[in-house]
């Protein structure tokens, strides 16, 4: 049904555009000087048509189901009236099923008739919406065309409307973010109502599975997240030790030394790395790298767990190389050639120029490339699940199995869960910590960049 409505909107818009534009052309032929180009008159008419139509659609569509459902429930015979939320939902589901013609099992004839009436009303409502929408469109059209005149500032009006549309989109983006943050924050507080926050942040013992029984919720003291933070940091550091130098140096090579031919081949190849699904990296880590490290460690007489932080960190490092290299490459290329010329002109060699002029000038961009890579490393789950294990060991030894925040979130929320047990809620607390960490890191990076920024124009 909705698509008919939108088709009508589109047709109206096209017609309105041509009508508005040809009116403007007519003014021009009558020897008037137009304030705005004819196209703007057309766009103005479009806006006057589609804005009321879309607003009507949005309001009507949100209201109609709710109203019709209430009405349908009221028209049920007394014996079928729902008594609580659960039975209300069941009744509604039955009504909807009847309305859409998919009935499973026995539906009482009383309910069936109400369901059919519901379907009928819904169709009526759809048509009414369409007719009213067309009326709105026509009204908008009339209103707009009456305003058109040679002096009409259609350009300014359209400009303002465009600004409003863009503003609305940014508001949606911001509100979504704020909404997510607040819902996570809210659940986190619910978690902290059961487990004290100091125990969560500073506890050394993480074993949420033991705390699942109702009689011991939150009382087992098994929600100490320090091992997870340490594990995350350990893997992140290993990953950055791999990706930082390799990514940065390959970016320097690509930007400064490689011939255009090499560059045109090597850069896409590097970027393919970024497209490899993390699961693939994960089993590569688990099945190839981890055993390799294990046997290498044994050859050296070291005791290596079959799942180790080192394996996960190394592979993750490889995974995030393209994030570092591609972005760094872009910012290095953005450093103006005149700076390099200035340095060469002083007799600096290529590597001196890179070290003393190009990299400092590109520093802010390089820092943000590293930040992005760290965020990826901290947020990555699949590789760690497969290669580093699930055991929450508190260790700084890269040869042991560790676990990370994201892996635990994933473990806590897979399978059937009660949605208000401490175990489930702890995932929100972990998510919040992760979020807060990323935010803090961005903030610090911004400060670093601002302090050391070396402006060029």
């Amino acid at each position, binding site marked *: 049904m909705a698509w008919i409505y939108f088709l009508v909107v589109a047709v109206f818009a096209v017609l309105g555009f041509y009508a508005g534009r040809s009116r403007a052309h007519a003014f021009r032929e009558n020897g008037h000087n137009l304030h705005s180009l004819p196209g703007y008159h057309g766009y103005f008419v479009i806006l006057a048509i589609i804005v009321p139509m879309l607003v009507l659609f949005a309001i009507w569509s949100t209201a109609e189901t709710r109203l019709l459902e209430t009405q349908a429930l009221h028209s049920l015979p007394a014996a079928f009236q729902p008594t609580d939320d659960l039975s209300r939902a069941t009744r509604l589901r039955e009504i909807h099923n009847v309305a859409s013609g998919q009935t499973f099992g026995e539906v009482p004839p009383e309910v069936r008739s109400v369901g059919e009436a519901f379907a009928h009303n819904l169709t009526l409502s759809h048509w009414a919406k369409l007719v009213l929408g067309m009326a709105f469109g026509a009204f908008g059209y009339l209103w707009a065309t009456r305003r058109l005149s040679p002096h009409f500032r259609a350009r300014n009006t359209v400009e303002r409307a465009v600004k409003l549309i863009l503003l609305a989109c940014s508001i949606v983006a911001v509100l979504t973010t704020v909404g997510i943050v607040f819902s996570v924050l809210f659940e986190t507080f619910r978690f902290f109502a059961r487990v004290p926050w100091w125990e969560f942040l500073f506890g050394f013992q993480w074993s949420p599975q033991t705390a699942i029984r109702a009689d011991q919720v939150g009382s087992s003291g098994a929600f100490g997240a320090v091992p997870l933070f340490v594990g995350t940091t350990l893997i992140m550091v290993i990953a950055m030790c791999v990706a930082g130098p390799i990514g940065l140096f390959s970016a320097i090579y690509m930007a400064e030394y490689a011939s255009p031919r090499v560059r045109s081949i090597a850069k896409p190849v590097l970027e393919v790395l970024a497209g490899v699904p993390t699961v693939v990296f994960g089993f590569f880590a688990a099945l190839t790298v981890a055993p390799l490290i294990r046997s290498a460690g044994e050859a050296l007489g070291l005791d290596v767990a079959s799942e180790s932080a080192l394996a996960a960190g190394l592979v993750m490092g490889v995974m995030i190389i393209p994030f570092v290299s591609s972005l760094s490459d872009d910012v290095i290329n953005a450093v103006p050639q005149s700076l390099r010329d200035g340095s060469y002109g*002083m*007799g600096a060699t290529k590597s001196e120029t890179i070290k003393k002029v190009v990299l400092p000038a590109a520093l802010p961009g390089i820092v943000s490339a590293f930040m992005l890579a760290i965020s990826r490393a901290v947020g990555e789950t699949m590789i760690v699940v497969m290669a580093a294990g699930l055991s929450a060991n508190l260790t700084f030894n890269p040869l042991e199995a560790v676990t990370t925040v994201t892996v635990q979130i994933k473990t806590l929320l897979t399978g059937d869960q009660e949605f208000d047990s401490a175990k489930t809620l702890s995932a929100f607390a972990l998510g919040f910590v992760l979020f807060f960490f990323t935010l803090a890191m961005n903030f610090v990076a911004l400060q670093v960049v601002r302090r050391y920024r070396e402006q060029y124009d």
Partner: protein
Amino acid sequence: MDLSLSPIAHVDVPPDTRTKIRASGVNVFYGDKHALKDVSIAIPEKAVMAFIGPSGCGKSTFLRCINRMNDTIDIARITGNIDIDGQDIYTPSLDVVQLRARVGMVFQKPNPFPKSIFENIAYGPRIHGIAKDKTELEEIVVGSLKRAGLFEEVKDRLDDSGTSLSGGQQQRLCIARAIAVSPEIILMDEPCSALDPIASAKIEELITELRQNFTIVIVTHSMQQAARVSQRTAFFHLGILVEEGATDDIFTNPREPRTQDYITGRFG
């Protein structure tokens, strides 16, 4: 164009100064494009040589041959000879780093490094290991700033970024940066084209002063500027060195009709 300009600066140059740079039969190709054709010229020591000519005639190209900046352009190819003090600068045994320490360059658009004013000047001395210690480095920086006529304006803010200066100050900073390594030759590619008349006048004054100690080659689009600051002028057209001579002669009675046309503003 007013030809009754008074080229004041040329009078005190002895006619037979020593030749600093000698180019013979220099050709430059950018890929297939023959940008500079068989240029031969002698540039005298401790004097200002101006290159003039219409846009695209190869002035910058020739200038960049003198400190081998064309090496940084992949497609550029150079034939012929350029000697500085009788030594061929294109022999394989020559170290470009040392060459560029002897031949400084100032570019059309001021290009201070995004570093502090101090660090901008200290850049060259650091690379070439000229200063023995911190005090000596400071002396070099202050001395260069003074010689570039910038010290009074920036002495209280040597730690500010070089890019925070005005365009004219930036260009003088670039000149100070170039003279900090005590070069023998300074190449300037339209050093005033991004500056207003007052800032340009300051640069011109500076050039006249620097001439005492340095050999200066300047590319300029301003005939007045060439007349004011240079002792000798070379006119390029379509990659060819059309005419070279004492600035006075070039501007008052050029031998070539093309030079005449150009300096009277008939083309270019």
